[in-house]
């Protein structure tokens, strides 16, 4: 099956500044795809080249098999939800939602019905006659969504749509956006700098740094098997430890500083298998503090608690292990009966070779 959106070697230069470098991307019909990265990584520029607001310096963008070169934004089968929502303040909610239907041949009554349906879909049924500038942030966001979706685009582009909302509202809208996307079946491309948001919502994520795609994968792969130190750092927390890598036939053997030896599978090295000095990564929740009397069949290292950060449901410990210069960050659920350890407590740390990720460099 040919992808709905196909980017080949897309570059964007502003003078000497390279905003996008050699972007290759395939996005499938019906996918919820996210462009994730720190600010200035080019994710918004990439979205705007797809929307037609920025011309590419080189490379091709195809949507539904059609080359988009020279096609202006108003002739592309894409619609966009802007970061500022760009809800027209001089129009009513219904006029906003019906804005794109000006050239639609349907009758006035039919269009009004379509507008009402779109408003109901985003939970704003009956709001049509309100003035747009009197709406709250969340409501504006819904108007912007309805306004774009009513045109039944092939692709809906969302530029940091949730960044202006408070935390509670953001979480609610995340769920609603997923539901909406399943309901309409339209391909969504979301730009965000919030890794949690991307993990929660997306089918696939492209992580971007400095105009390049660092890794493109589904959320679980991205989290569990980051291909580089950069991706691992950007998504969630990760302990990095120096290690020595040896290949023995098919087996890959690592000697992790402070923790000891272990064998890993090839899939635990998505960035390739270096030989000699390397870095391994371990997520805080794959490590465990062994409280008094607890036994384990996993490997164990000795350490001293260096820092304790209490989060309510979780406690994050920094534990100093001999042979490693930075303390290990360990996340522990605050289960019933578990104490919160004090700084300076001697403790044992359990770790598992299956959770290791071998990172190049």
């Amino acid at each position, binding site marked *: 099956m040919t992808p709905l959106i196909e980017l080949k070697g897309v570059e964007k230069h502003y003078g000497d500044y390279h905003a996008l470098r050699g972007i290759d991307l395939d996005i499938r019909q019906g996918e919820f795809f996210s462009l994730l990265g720190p600010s200035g990584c080019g994710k918004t520029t990439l979205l705007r080249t797809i*929307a037609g*607001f920025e011309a590419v310096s080189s490379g091709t963008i195809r949507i539904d098999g059609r080359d988009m070169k020279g096609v*202006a*934004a*108003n002739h592309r089968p*894409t*619609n*966009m939800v*802007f*970061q*500022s929502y*760009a809800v*027209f*303040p*001089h129009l009513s909610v219904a006029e906003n939602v019906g*804005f*794109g239907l*000006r*050239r639609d041949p349907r009758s006035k009554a039919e269009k009004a019905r379509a507008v009402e349906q779109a408003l109901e879909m985003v939970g704003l049924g009956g709001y049509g006659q309100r003035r747009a*500038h009197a709406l709250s942030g969340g409501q504006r966001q819904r108007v*912007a969504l309805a*306004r*774009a979706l009513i*045109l039944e685009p092939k692709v809906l582009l969302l530029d940091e749509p949730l960044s202006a909302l408070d935390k509670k509202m953001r979480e609610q809208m995340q769920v609603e956006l997923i539901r909406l996307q399943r309901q309409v079946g339209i391909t969504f491309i979301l730009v965000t700098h919030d890794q949690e948001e991307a993990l929660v919502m997306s089918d696939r994520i492209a992580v971007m740094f400095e105009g390049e795609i660092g890794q493109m994968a589904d959320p679980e792969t991205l989290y569990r098997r980051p291909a580089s130190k950069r991706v691992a750092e950007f998504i969630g927390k990760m302990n990095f430890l120096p290690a020595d890598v040896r290949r023995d036939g098919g087996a890959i053997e690592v000697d992790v500083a402070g923790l000891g030896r272990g064998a890993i599978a090839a899939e635990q090295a998505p960035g390739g298998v270096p030989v000699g000095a390397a870095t391994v990564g371990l997520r805080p929740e794959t490590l465990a503090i062994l409280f008094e009397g607890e036994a384990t069949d996993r490997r164990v290292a000795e350490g001293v608690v260096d820092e304790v950060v209490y989060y309510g449901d979780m406690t994050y410990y920094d534990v100093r292990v001999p042979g490693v210069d930075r303390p290990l960050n360990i996340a522990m659920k605050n289960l019933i009966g578990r104490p919160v350890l004090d700084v300076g407590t001697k403790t044992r740390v359990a770790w598992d070779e299956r959770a290791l990720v071998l990172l190049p460099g």
Partner: protein
Amino acid sequence: MKKGRSLGTYAVLYLVFLYAPIVLLPLFAFNDATIIAFPLKGFTTQWFEALATNAALLQSLRNSLFIAVMTAIFATLLGMCAARAGAMAEFPGKKGIIGFVMLPLVLPEIIVAVSLLIVLRQVLGLNLNNWSVIAAHTLICTPFSIAILNGAFQNLDPSMEEAAMDLGESRWSAFRLVTLPLVMPGIISSMLIAFTISLDEFIIAFFLTGANPTMPVYIWGLLRFPAQLPVVMALGTILVTLSVVLLVIAEYFRRRGMARAGVKDTGGFL
């Protein structure tokens, strides 16, 4: 706050200083005496009646109105170009170009008057008429229009127009359907200000006016004839009233524009 109170007293006194001359206008406009001096004599409306029958004055008023309307239109059009360009992307020399267009704001008016007079009369050998005044007034009013419209255009979210284009409108129709209605209050405000400036401008008009003088040039002539002074007072009263009304309207539209763009009001003109 003691400091605030004494400052406040000073500010009020300052306002009295600002308004002192203007308060006199209606006093003498309705005063039944030819000499402009105290004590006042009695109430009359004869100076206003004399205004209405003064053909030369009415002709100069017509000239000035025509010049002011044309100036308002041209200055606002040019101002829109510059303000919109200023709110858009960077281009080489942007600061210098906009600064150059704003230059008449700080140029002595006599320089503008003299230089245009030389070009029109001596270099091009043209006769002076209303259009020479319009050309000069457009030049000095454009910076004011830019200053007013800058507020309107810069408060505009650039993604508004993009959103309209994204929803199927062309560049031009996006401008017409979204940007124009949103900056309309600024446009009206700019036209009113340019109109008011042009209507009142004397220094340049005196140099460039043709056979038919503008109203300020005509008033200048009247000032030499003491017998005509009460008529000038009556005219001044009408002009002040007109200016205040126009300004109130301009201010109303400017604020409405701010409210539309969802911006908190921060100040007055300029």
